[in-house]
Structure formats: C-alpha cells, structure tokens
C-alpha cells in the first residue's frame, strides 16, 4: 500500500510538471526505484518467514575452518580490512565481516590481529569487535590493541603487515576490503608462511591476484553477501534473494537491449535503446 501510495504521488508530481526534478535522469530514477522496491519486497518476504535457498559459497564456509585451524595450531588470525577509509562501501563490508570473524575467534578463544591503515577504520573495527566478544560472552578476551593502526601509506602499510606475518606467522590470513597494488604483496607473503588465506574484494583489478595467491576468494557480489551468509539473519538473506532477482532482471534487460539495438541498426525500428539507457 505504501509502495502504491508513493507511486501515485510520483505520478501526480510528474503530471504537475515535476518542478526541480532532473527530467533527463528519469530512466535511472525508475531503475533505482524498481531495484530498491524489489529488495524491500524480498526483505519483507523473509521477515514473514519465507525460506530461501542460498547457494553454497566455499570461501565463506572456509572462514570458520580457518579460525578452527588457527585454534588447533595455537596461532593468531590476521584480518586485513583493506587500505581505504570508511567512506568506501567495501571497507564497511570488510569491517562488518570482521564482526563475524571476531565472534568466531571469541568462541574458539583464538587471538585476533587486525592491523588497519585508517584511524576511523580502527575505531569502527574496535567497536564492532568489542561488541562481538561481548555477544559471545567473552568480553574478557577482547583487547583494544587487537585492532591497531599502522600507517595511512599504502606500501608502508604493506611492509608493516608483511612484518607481522613473517614474525607472528598467523595460521589464517583474511583480506576483506578494498585493495590496490599491495594485494599481491600481502597474499604472496601469506602464502609463503603457509597460512590458509581467504580474500574478499570488489576491487576488480585485484581479484586475479587474490585468486592466484589465496585458497579462497570471494569475488565481487559474494563479498557483499558475506555478512548475510555468516549472520543467517532472515532480513539480510531476503536482501540476497532480492539481489539474485535483480541480477536476472539486469540479464533480461541486457538481452532485450541487444535485440532492440540490432533492430535499430537494421532499420526495423526508429528508436535507439542506447540513447534511452545512457545516463545523462
């Protein structure tokens, strides 16, 4: 009913001359609205108790295995939340996954080492890790210095993390966040010390490096699905289902656009879909 009301209000606003609205961006506006509505619909379905099937993601299953391995070996877990600040959605996703990993390390009583390259990430990481240890009933195991600052500089940070790896020899290295050229330096060093390595990033250029050097890699959307997958909260799982539906929708839109473009090139229709879809 709310969606219907909003749609009606927008139609009235549009017919009234839509003052202040950038008309040339209407396609993008509609796309965002439809996509957001789809997500909200599936989140509501999940809240009502609907069960969704989730495909298995080996990299996420391996997180618990990696923490367990560290426990057995009596070595720490090293967690790297990328080198960017909290204004990047990947860093936020990385810090959220840190919360889930911290729960596991609290449960298994394994030490956790989180070197960060931004002060705000340090504060956010500490808060989320503290909350996780408290939720697991082990606030006594949490120390502020688990999440510690190294430096803002990219290669100085890589050197610092490499030093920690070589000195402490963690049994598991997790890289979750936004990475640049330092990704391979970190992952190859982790490989050389024999740690089980799991990476997750949306930095497209770094994915091949992680795939090569790590045992498991969460590629793009899998990385953003991690929080829902690890928490198993219905509302988050609903969001994942909605995301899958959006993917089907985008695939259909690509195929439809392809045919329309071909028809336009052949002169069968006098309308170019590319002009319609291009963001103004």
């Amino acid at each position, binding site marked *: 009913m709310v969606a219907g009301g909003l749609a009606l209000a927008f139609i009235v606003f549009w017919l009234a001359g839509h003052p*202040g609205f*950038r008309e040339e*961006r209407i396609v*993008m*506006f509609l796309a965002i609205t439809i*996509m*957001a509505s789809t*997500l*909200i619909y599936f*989140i509501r379905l999940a809240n009502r108790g609907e069960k969704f099937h989730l495909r298995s993601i080996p990299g996420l299953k391996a997180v618990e295995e990696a923490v367990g391995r560290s426990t057995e070996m009596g070595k720490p877990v090293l967690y790297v939340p990328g080198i960017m*600040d909290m*204004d990047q*959605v990947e860093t*936020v996703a990385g810090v*959220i996954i840190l*919360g889930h990993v911290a729960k596991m390390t609290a449960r298994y009583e394994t030490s956790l080492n989180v070197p960060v390259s*931004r*002060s*705000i990430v*340090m*504060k*956010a990481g500490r808060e*989320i890790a503290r*909350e*996780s240890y408290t939720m697991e009933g082990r606030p006594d195991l949490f120390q502020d210095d688990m999440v*510690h*600052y190294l430096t*803002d500089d*990219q*290669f*100085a940070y890589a*050197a610092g993390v490499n*030093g920690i790896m070589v000195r402490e020899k963690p049994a598991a290295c997790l890289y979750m966040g936004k990475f640049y*050229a*330092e990704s*391979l*330096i970190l992952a*190859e060093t982790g490989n050389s010390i024999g740690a089980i390595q799991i990476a997750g990033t*949306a930095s*497209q250029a770094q*994915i091949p*490096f992680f*795939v*090569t*050097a790590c045992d498991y890699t969460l*590629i*793009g*959307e899998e*990385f*953003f*699905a991690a*929080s829902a997958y690890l928490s198993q909260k219905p509302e*988050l799982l609903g*969001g*994942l289902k*909605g*995301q899958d539906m*959006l*993917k089907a929708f*985008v695939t259909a839109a690509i195929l439809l656009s392809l045919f329309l473009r071909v028809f336009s090139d052949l002169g069968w229709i006098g309308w170019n879909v590319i002009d319609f879809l291009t963001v103004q």
Partner: protein
Amino acid sequence: MLWKRQIPILIATVVGLLTLFGWFIDNPGIESFVNDDATQWFDILASFAIFLGALNLMKLQGRKVLKQHSGWQYSLFAIGGFIFAIVAGFIYKGNDAVAWGVHVTSKGTLFKWMFDFIFTPLSATMFALLAFFVASASYRAFRVRNLEATLLLVSGMIIMVGRVPLGSSISSWFIMYLLVLVGSVAANIKFQDKIITFGVLLGGVVIVTIWGSLAGWPVDQPSIFYLPMLQDWIYNNPNVAGARAIMIGIGLGIFATSIRYILGVEKSYIGE
C-alpha cells in the same frame, strides 16, 4: 542506547537518502552538499582521527620497546621515524628562506629531503617487490593442471608475446605450424596410433604449406593466427565480457548493501 543505535541509523538513513535522491533533484544546495560538503566533512573528521591512530601506533611500539618483546629493535625505527617526521614537519624546516607550509614540497628543506631520500626509495622498494611476487604467482597460476589452467596459460602466453615487439615479428604461418604440431600431439594422446598421428601431422603441414605458398606468406595473414591481433581479440572480447559480468555483480552488490544500510536493515556497522 539512543545515541549508540537509533541516532547513527537515522544519520545513515537521512544522509544516504539525500545522497541517493539528491542526484535527481535540481537544487544547487543539495548538489553542493552531496558533491562537496559531505566529502569535506568526512575529510575533516578523518584528519582529526589521525591523532587516534598516531597515539595508538606510538603506544604499541613504545610498549614493545619497554617490555622488550621479540623484534623490539624494529619498534625503535618506527618511533624514531615518527619523531623525525614530526620534527621535520612542525619544528625544524632546515631552510629559513622557505615559509612554513610550503616547506613540505620545497627543495632544500628537511621534510623534502626525508620525503625524497627516505620515504620515496622505501616505497619504491616495496612496489618493486611486486615484480617478483607477480613472477612467483604466475608460476603457480600457469601450471598445467586442468583445462581451465591450460586455457589461462595459453591466453596468458598469447597476451604476453603479442604485446611485445617480438610478437609482431612472429608470422601467423609459424603459429599455424605450431598448431598442427599441437594437433598431432593431441591426436597421439587420443588415438595412441603412430599412423594417425603421422597422418594428422603430414596433412596439416601440407595444407599450411600449400595455403602459404598460394597466399605469398604474408606475416599478418590470416589475422586470426597473428599474435598482436589475437591478443587484441582476447583482451577486448572474452576478457571484457568476463570483467563486465563481474562488474555487474559488484554494482548490484554495492547497491543492495547501500540500500540495506539506508533502510537500517543492516545494522552490523554499529555493532548490532
């Protein structure tokens, strides 16, 4: 609870909606907030937060030295470097002719000397390590273990050779002869018969030779076997198709995650 839960969620929702829908509203105030003010606020916050990071760094390194933990000697360098940078940045310029502020980029100052002769070479050293790591990672990735790894190896070789000057000197006919050889090896593995293998090899060589003779052996024809053209095709077609598929997934992931934050569905970032 209100300050640690509801208020942060409210701020995330309001600013998120403003940023998302501000893009569709023709209002200079909102546009200026989204494009300039909001990012400047973040930069100011981050600048103040650096004190927290620096204090934490000094605390940990200092404790390491005082308690003489393993590798405490390295901490001396960290503390010494930190103090040196503070002195060069705020206390001693090393050149009185240069004003404070511009001294960080002016020649002849202590800070610039530190930047040019300590910081830059150390960063370059770390970056240079990447070349060796690329080599070791490529060695593992390019080992022929299965079909996918073989495809990676072959396409990687084509890209590497096709992008260097040597690649443009290799005739497409040479590549065709190589393919005939590979085909005959494959026939031998499949049929384990010398006659069939020899037949494939001989037939292939004869066909390529006759074809080449008739065409006049042009280096870049047929273009499908010419390495610069082939690498260009691999780079711009299968590679771009795969990369775009990943990009679409990433885009949807970012969108869905952002919507979850804006709607307050995802509250893990405040520790819930």
